[in-house]
């Protein structure tokens, strides 16, 4: 199985008997909950691309392009809605023993309604009314940020990738159906009631503090709690930076337009001033573009990773929580064994053994998963940090080049003119 997943990672160019090491799925080779099955090649292995997102009325349709790795010719194109993704997640969770698995997190629902678009724009551009004689530039709320589905596409793509490459989840039938069958799978209405969420939260609060038997896990739980909070905060702040950059870019462009439009006077000094202004406004345009590029790049690199992992950490927390539950069951069962009267004793022992086995299974799976997860996380972060830095530097350099040109032009601008 790990060979198969290796395949996925190396874009299908490797064959089944690829080197067992140098892959994050190596730890999967042993200790899987189905030790009886020999690792078999992961047959329908896919690479998925979310190529497009189109808004149809109020609903966003995503076009998925799937390629089977083994046979490059087979390509599937399907159209899916966000609800289909939710259904897929539901299937994956319910049809697999996800005890020790960290389920990849589904990206949040994209905002399609007008109100949410406005809310987003407000958040991004700020709702400061600028004091100024121009009202069209004054109220930024009027500038609604266009529907950006690019980001959603990427998130969904990443989600599918994570699922597909997961040794256990990737084998699920639902995935195959999801990716290959033209019609969307029929789905039952998923009811997410408030109560279930609430009870979950309460349960988490109650059992979350329960001390762990295993030190490794205890430490892990503590860390993950801490890190997830910080990661969320970092993500928030990072997005603020990106929005800030966008806003400065908007401000620059306003200034540039104002400079450009301002010069109506044609006499004497003003011709020169106009020339200067025009040059300056060009420089500002360049600066603005540089900033925009930076903002987009930032968002796509570090922002993306931060976002993904803040969700992923939540998933990890859930997994650990499940384990904790099992552990408590186990402990309860053990206690029951001790307390049990002889007739019930066998049953209690059986229950306890079952609980113990489950717990052990979960723990083992969890351990592997955790190692894998962390490894992957570190790699992803490295990758995105490097890209982030690269992109930023490049954008900065380009902007610098353009701006120096502008400065030179300004300095050498001919300022002679005929006075009145």
């Amino acid at each position, binding site marked *: 199985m790990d060979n198969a997943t290796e395949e996925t990672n190396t874009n299908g160019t490797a064959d089944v008997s690829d080197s067992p090491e140098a892959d994050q799925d190596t730890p999967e080779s042993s200790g899987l909950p189905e030790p009886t099955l020999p690792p078999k090649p992961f047959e329908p292995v896919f690479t998925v691309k979310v190529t497009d997102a189109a808004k149809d009325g109020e609903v966003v349709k995503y076009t998925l392009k799937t390629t089977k790795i083994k046979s490059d010719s087979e390509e599937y194109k399907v159209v899916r809605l966000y609800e289909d993704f939710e259904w897929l997640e539901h299937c994956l969770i319910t049809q697999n023993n996800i005890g020790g698995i960290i389920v990849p997190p589904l990206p949040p629902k994209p905002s399609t309604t007008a109100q949410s678009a406005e809310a987003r724009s407000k958040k991004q551009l700020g709702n400061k009314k600028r004091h100024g004689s121009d009202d069209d530039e004054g109220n930024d709320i009027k500038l609604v940020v266009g529907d950006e589905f690019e980001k959603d596409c990427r998130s969904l793509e990443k989600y599918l990738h994570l699922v597909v490459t997961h040794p256990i989840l990737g084998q699920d039938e639902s995935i195959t159906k999801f990716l290959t069958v033209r019609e969307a799978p029929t789905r039952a209405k998923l009811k997410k009631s408030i109560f279930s969420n609430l009870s979950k939260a309460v349960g988490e609060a109650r059992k979350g503090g329960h001390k762990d038997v295993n030190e490794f896990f205890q430490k892990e739980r503590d860390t993950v709690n801490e*890190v997830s909070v910080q990661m969320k905060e970092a993500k928030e702040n990072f997005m603020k930076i990106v929005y*800030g950059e966008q806003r400065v870019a908007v401000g620059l462009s306003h200034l540039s337009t104002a400079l450009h439009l301002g010069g*109506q006077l044609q006499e004497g000094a003003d011709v020169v001033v106009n020339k*200067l202004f025009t040059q300056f406004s060009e420089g500002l345009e360049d600066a603005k573009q540089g900033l925009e*590029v930076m903002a987009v790049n930032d968002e796509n*690199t570090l922002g993306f990773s931060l976002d993904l992992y803040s969700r992923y950490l939540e998933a990890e927390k859930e997994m650990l929580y499940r384990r904790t539950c099992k552990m408590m069951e186990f402990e309860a069962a053990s206690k029951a064994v001790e307390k049990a009267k002889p007739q019930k004793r066998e049953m209690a022992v059986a229950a306890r053994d079952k609980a113990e086995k489950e717990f052990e299974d979960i723990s083992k799976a969890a351990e592997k998963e955790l190692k894998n997860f*962390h490894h992957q996380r570190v790699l992803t972060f490295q990758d995105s940090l490097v890209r982030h830095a690269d992109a930023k530097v490049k954008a900065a350099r380009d902007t610098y080049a353009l701006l120096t040109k502008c400065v030179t032009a300004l300095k050498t601008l001919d300022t002679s*003119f005929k006075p009145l």
Partner: protein
Amino acid sequence: MADDREPPPLFDDEKPDKKEEEDDLFATPNEAPKEEVKDEPASLPTEPAQDKASEDLFAADDDLFGDKQEGPVEVDTSKLRRKLTEDVDDLSPIEEPKPLIPTAADSGKPPQSDAAAKKEPPKEKEKAKEVKPAYKEEPANVSTDQPLLKPMKVSVDLHTPKPAQNMQEESAAPPQLEVVDEPPPEMDISGEGEEVDLDSPETEGPSSPAKMEPDSDSSPLEAPPMAEVLPPAKPVTEEKPKPTPAPRKPSMEKSKEEVGYTSFAQIEEEESGDQFALDIKVHDPGKIGDGMGAYMSYKVTTQCLDFGEEKKTSIPAFRRPSMTVTRRFSDFLGLHEKLSQKHVHIGRIVPPAPEKSVVGMTKIKMSKEDTSSTEFVEKRRALLERFLQRISIHPVLQMDPDFRDFLEQDELPRATSTSAVSGAGVLRLIKGVGDTLSKVTIKMDESDQWFEEKQNQVEALDQQLKKLHASVEALVTYRKELGISTAAFAKSTAMLSNSEEHTALSRALSQLAEVEEKIEQVHLEQADNDFFLLSELLKDYIGIIQAIRIVFHERVKSFHNWQNAQQTLAKKREAEAKFKQTGKTDKIAHAQEEIREWEGKVE
């Protein structure tokens, strides 16, 4: 390190000095991030596999990023622009981790954090902005091509008594200035009578920027933009007084002639004998007193400089070559009041004084030591300095005894008329209302084409400046916000790195945190620059335009008065004629007296 050589080829066609700057910026890579990123491949051999995977993910991205980084690219503006726009959609796949890592390392050093780099953009911006306002003032900077020279040149030249034509009536006309309406070419230098030829201002040029340099080095960053912006600002007041000190009808033609001097080259030819300039600095704001009676005091240092000899000489009008006095804000306002009373009604433009800001002062009085109050103090200090310097280069106002007193005397009588709540304040309010009304009601037939044009121009300029000012203010706010967000992000990244177990990642994160902090510094600095260079400048000019408007208004008023006087005179003459006819001789004498009186007024 071979990759360090990559950036310079990018800018081959730039000037050599630019190249040096470039090298400065990119020559000293941070070693730490380089090591950082290099560690990764060593510890994580699975990286190439992962990267390929990520390449799949982002395979929609352009290869542009990777390409452009490797090869030298010509600096072609359009191409660069295209690059920028293309980048928007992509991220480069990291095709070859290894080569990218050194370049990543080399680029890992934040270019802006370099101390040299920090100086460079502000300086460049300073120069750029300084060039801009300098050129805004038309005649100033034609002959040479060094921007820095021009402002100083202007200040020399503008001491020539060109607008002095109308000072015949002015008793306050200082003796040095030529109270003569001659056509510009003949404008001779009085006073010291030195015939300075064209060369000396040019030699002055290098020395004056040199003079400016020590200023900029010693004083905080805001001061140099102020100081350097100011000389270009001086020409404004000079330029405007030239056209406008001719509201009096008799001399209107002459003034036009004066104003119509053809080019500043001619003006530069006759060198001013008044070779001095007053270098005024306002500094050292200090809070005196406590509670509601507290006020801010500023030290005003004046130095009289002689351009010809580059040393302090004594001007006969001033007692000492260099002096320092302590003044408070109401003193400045009092000076402005006095000057306005004396000069505005004859059409001189008195530079606008900073407004009294109750909020700001109350904050200071409450002894709140937060950033907003320090900013406020700084703004005010800069405004006051510019106010004084504008007065000092105005040929008429400069010689004003009140002004001199202000600079010299240790103790000034308390200018009570400027306090916010007082009898004088109420009087001023009423007067202001009257003024506004009269502005609306008096319609003057603008017989003078020139003035009408100028008026329109001024209005248009005002509009434009106001718009620009609003935009710049917004920009500054946004930048400051960006700085704050960056700081917050830096903090959270630092926290993340603390809780991160994986050491290499932890280190990387903490590096990122540091970098972000530096970026924040840059952002804030940029915001400050923007503010002090652009925003304040614009506000300044808006203020000047306001002053111009006032003078225009005065002109309208005087025209109105003149018309009235004429009308009354005509009536009186009629009355006199009637009396003559009816033979009432006693009334004739009375009427004749009145006639004489009104004739006098008409003139």
